């Protein structure tokens, strides 16, 4: 959005520490409600991979005032839709409903923030459901977990950054009810959360309802957030993963990038660089790798393994490509390095930047137009940046990235400080029996 026409925003903090963002918009009779908790899979303990995501599932399984299944029934029976998702640094829960159901949604979120019902039956049931989710998204399909599960262990060396956020089956099966209780008491404190309410609301009425339902959630200390910093790689790190389902080889190149929060302008230069490299037929890597040299079927460059603005430091810049069997990974890497060199030496043209800027502007407008994505963006920017209004300044900030900034970003993507993950198809006679240690992803609840 242009800064001059910034939509109305209100922020407040309840006595128990819960941060609240209100963004009224009466243009359609629907409301969005989300709660972001400041804990993601980077915070889960060793031996408990996948726990943050498993716990997200459990938060849908009932609370003091709500039997199992009641949460879904009340949201959908009021005409609404819901979901939740687990990210590296946060976990979100959200619903969009006809505006008549606003108080109901606040009640449901408050009840599980205050007193979720954590039972052995629900834990066992949701371990089964999560294992089916992992089979669906990782184990039983080609390129499962590529690159989000497979690249981090090559690029990073510490457990929080390197491990599989979907979880190992063995770890999931060992999760106990006491783990759940400890996780909730530590991380799901109101002071560690952000509530966002958007859409067809009256601000004063919404404030009253929020105080009514969340005001008596008892205060608990906000946990100290550890640093996940680790030094960048000193050299090129390479690993090969054999994929029993993949028909074509693929590769992912991972680089470290500027701190998304404390070096935002450098981070945005990387976003623009990603656009210059791979957004549209006129972009550098599309032209070179797909069309001119015909080395790859598809190529993509981007900031963040789940998209931008999803994580704190350290975050990953990645380039992924699927290519023909007779092309070697080094051919692809050489072409990528040449294109990065060219950009580092000769900054991009004004028109190249204008293209990226206009597409970002349009895509930010489109995100704002979908109430669910608007709600989640405001909540995550409050959580990660302490500034939801930044959502509306992004288009201008991106437009002010210069050609020299992009050249500098390209120069920093060095061949001697990166990870290369190579995916090789196995022979046709694949044995896709279930491995005891699974790969993973996070994702939605439904």
């Amino acid at each position: 959005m242009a800064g001059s026409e910034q939509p109305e925003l209100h922020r407040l903090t309840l006595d128990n520490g819960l941060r609240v963002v209100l963004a009224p918009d009466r243009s359609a009779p629907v409301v969005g409600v989300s709660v972001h908790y400041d804990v993601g899979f980077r915070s889960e303990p060793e031996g408990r991979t996948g726990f943050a995501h498993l716990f997200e599932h459990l938060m849908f399984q009932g609370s003091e005032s709500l039997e199992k299944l009641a949460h879904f029934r009340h949201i959908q029976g009021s005409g609404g839709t819901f979901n939740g998702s687990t990210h590296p640094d946060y976990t979100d829960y959200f619903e969009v409903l006809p505006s008549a159901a606003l108080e109901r949604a606040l009640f449901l979120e408050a009840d599980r923030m205050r007193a979720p019902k954590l039972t052995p039956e629900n834990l066992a049931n949701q371990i089964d459901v999560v294992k089916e989710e992992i089979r669906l998204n990782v184990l039983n399909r080609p390129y499962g977990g590529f690159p989000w599960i497979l690249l981090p262990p090559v690029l990073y060396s510490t457990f929080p950054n390197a491990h599989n956020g979907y979880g190992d089956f063995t770890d999931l099966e060992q999760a106990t009810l006491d783990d759940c209780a400890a996780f909730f008491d530590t991380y799901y404190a109101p002071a560690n959360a952000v509530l966002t309410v958007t859409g067809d609301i009256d601000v004063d009425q919404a404030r009253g309802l929020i105080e009514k339902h969340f005001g008596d959630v008892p205060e608990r200390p906000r946990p100290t957030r550890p640093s996940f910093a680790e030094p960048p790689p000193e050299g090129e790190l390479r690993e090969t993963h054999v994929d029993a389902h993949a028909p074509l080889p693929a590769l992912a190149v991972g680089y470290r990038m500027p701190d998304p929060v404390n070096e935002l302008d450098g981070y945005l230069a990387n976003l623009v660089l990603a656009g210059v490299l791979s957004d549209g037929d006129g972009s550098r890597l599309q032209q070179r790798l797909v069309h001119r040299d015909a080395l790859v079927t598809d190529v993509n460059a981007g900031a963040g393994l789940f998209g931008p603005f999803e994580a704190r430091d350290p975050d990953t810049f990645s380039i992924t490509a699927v290519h023909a069997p007779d092309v070697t990974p080094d051919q692809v890497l050489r072409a990528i390095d040449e294109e990065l060199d060219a950009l580092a030496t000769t900054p991009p043209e004004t028109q190249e930047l204008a293209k990226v800027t206009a597409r970002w502007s349009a895509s930010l407008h489109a995100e704002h137009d979908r109430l669910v994505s608007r709600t989640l963006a405001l909540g995550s920017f409050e959580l990660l940046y302490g500034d939801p209004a930044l959502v509306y300044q992004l288009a201008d900030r991106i437009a002010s990235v210069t050609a020299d900034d992009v050249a500098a970003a390209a120069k920093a993507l060095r061949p001697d400080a990166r990870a290369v993950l190579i995916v090789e198809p196995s022979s046709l006679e694949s044995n896709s029996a279930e491995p005891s240690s699974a790969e993973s992803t996070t994702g939605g609840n439904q």
Partner: protein
Amino acid sequence: VTAATHRSAEEIGRTPHGPRPLPDLGQQRGRTDLAHVDTVIGNGLRVLAVRKPGVPLVEARLSIPFAGTDPMHPATAEVLAETLLTGTRRRDRVAIDTELALIGGELGTVVDPERLAISGTALADGLPTLLDVLADVLTAASYPDTEVRREAERIGERLAVARTQPRVIAREALQRHRYGDHPYTREMPHAEDVAAVVPEQVRQLHAAAVLPRNSTLVLVGDLDPEQVVGQVEQALAGWESERSASVLPPLPMVSGGDVLLVPRAGAVQSQIRLSAQSLPRTDERYPALQLANLVLGGYFSSRLVENIREDKGYTYGAHSGFEFTGGSATVQVDADTATDVTAAALLETRYELGRLGLVPPTAEEVESVRQYAIGSLLIATSSQAGLASQLSALAAVGLGVEWLTGHPQRLADVSVEQVAEAALRFFAPSRFTGVVVGDAGVLAPQFEALGGVTVGAQ
């Protein structure tokens, strides 16, 4: 890292205050009117333009009936869709992308056995450019030889990837099982056909089939509908033909029968895909059937999800939903389940199909799905992109804004008895057929015991 001392799970789950009552629903405002123009312009194209400001964007959805019976049609159509935007007499591939990018725009194409769909978006003030590029590719796409060759190669590689996806394997098997060799089954071309496509065939197909008559263009966004129709009329004036775009021949009715087990050795998870004949949106019994379907598996709080996911943990997601094709419709019931519980999941799914008719949805269940159907339609159409896609699907079967705005009332008028009738009539297990893709070594003996399943050849 977690707190050294913490409460037990039991302590966490209760407060001194005790359980609290669920708040009532408040007052619901209705949606604002959708100012629109729905008209057929001079070249026979139906244009539906809807004003929906909010963000300064426009969404465009062009839908061209694109059926063909020639065995090479699916391959040629796929190459056409992938190369339509790679050059015209005035612009090459990069020029097209550049002009679109500078207006924050995108154009994309998808082809299936029924239609060629061209979707676009742009900043609102870029609409004239978007229409100009669209008109250019519709009237003067040149299909350069090098682009056609390169894209055919890439399609071949993508097809190889797609055909390793279990959901694609299951879809192709279901289509063959339901419809044999009907053109509707040819959703993905054969790689060898794609490799054999020559540029001249693509140019001929464009001339013969990319036609305005029978096609629909939906535009939604920050626009003035009256003015936009004039702009479209002017921009697309050169796109004309006396002939009409080619509509898919009617599909045969799906009749009930054995489920086919499609072997996939070593698979850790199976795909269950059941299907039965259903009703199109224009049938007066459709609203009741829509509600019956939601109770079965059309939303998370459905009988099927609560049974095989939330009670038994057999699946991450189970779902039932309609597939609308021309003037007809089918319903699909899907679940992906671990191999060792697949047969049990199929048994439970059949049980829920039978139970829907015999123990029909209660008044409470009907009220819940009614609210969900009305609310989720409101939510899905509250964004420009969501509204444009919804209207494009409706326009393709001759419906429009009036159907959309009238549907909440039709849902409100459905009685519990009408839902029960629809459930008994259309969800009887005997009306269903389908496929299961999975490890036959484990599944075949169990299915043999269960009955109603035929084991297919490896």
